[in-house]
């Protein structure tokens, strides 16, 4: 499957440099899926939201084609991956030698697998539940609902699934 990803950066008047060199790797504490190149999946709204909140009006958005395939650990759309990830978590919690107060989080588990076990994927896709989300209720007496517009991100561990030829700035309009 091919999707469009959006990558937001601070506008440092270096658009040509970024277009030539490609996305910037995130290694800050915000890297919630571990270190990698982060893109919002298809919905440019999240890319603008981040740019406005982080950089006020001084930001750039780049788009690129990204392949979602068997090399993608898909914690958004693959039920098997979700089930496996929970079991990996349980396994580490049960058989790791943790000290009181230590906590396993999503990025810690992913980085542990990458650095010590061997993580056989080149990208990870996952979603979170942002401040205000939209649900479609089934209505009537039923409690079920369907969530729309999840904030989905793709973290590229390597650029293998990224089409560098398609990587280009789309905001602002230079």
């Amino acid at each position, binding site marked *: 499957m091919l999707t469009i990803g959006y990558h937001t950066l601070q506008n440092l008047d270096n658009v040509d440099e970024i277009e030539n060199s490609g996305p910037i790797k995130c290694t*800050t504490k915000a890297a919630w899926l571990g270190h990698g190149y982060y893109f919002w999946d298809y919905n440019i709204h999240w890319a603008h939201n981040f740019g406005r909140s982080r950089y006020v009006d001084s930001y750039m958005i780049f788009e690129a084609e990204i392949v979602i395939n068997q090399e993608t650990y898909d914690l958004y759309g693959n039920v098997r991956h979700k089930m496996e990830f929970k079991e990996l978590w349980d396994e580490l919690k049960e058989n790791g*030698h943790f000290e009181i107060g230590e906590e396993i989080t999503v990025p810690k588990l992913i980085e542990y697998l990458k650095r010590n076990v061997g993580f056989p994927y080149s990208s990870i896709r996952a979603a979170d539940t942002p401040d205000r989300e939209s649900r*479609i209720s089934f209505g009537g007496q039923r409690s079920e609902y369907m969530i729309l517009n999840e904030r989905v991100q793709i973290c590229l561990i390597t650029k293998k699934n990224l089409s560098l030829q398609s990587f280009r700035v789309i905001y602002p309009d230079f």
Partner: protein
Amino acid sequence: MNTPLLQKLREHLASISKEQFRKEWTEIESLGLEGPNYEEFIQSLTASIKVTDIQILNIESPFNLELVNVQAGESSYANAA
């Protein structure tokens, strides 16, 4: 469930000493990464987040759909760039 990745993790954990694990985990902790913990992760899988406002859509629908705005609390992480 038994997958190659799960098996590799089991084998790795079984093959190392407590000291070796502590060394590995200290390296992970030193990265200072922030992300969902277990409860938040499970919450995101089940989407059991708090409903704060319900708005009936003004549309004709055979399913009598409602648009529901919900507050996700602190489980908000997909903001890396």
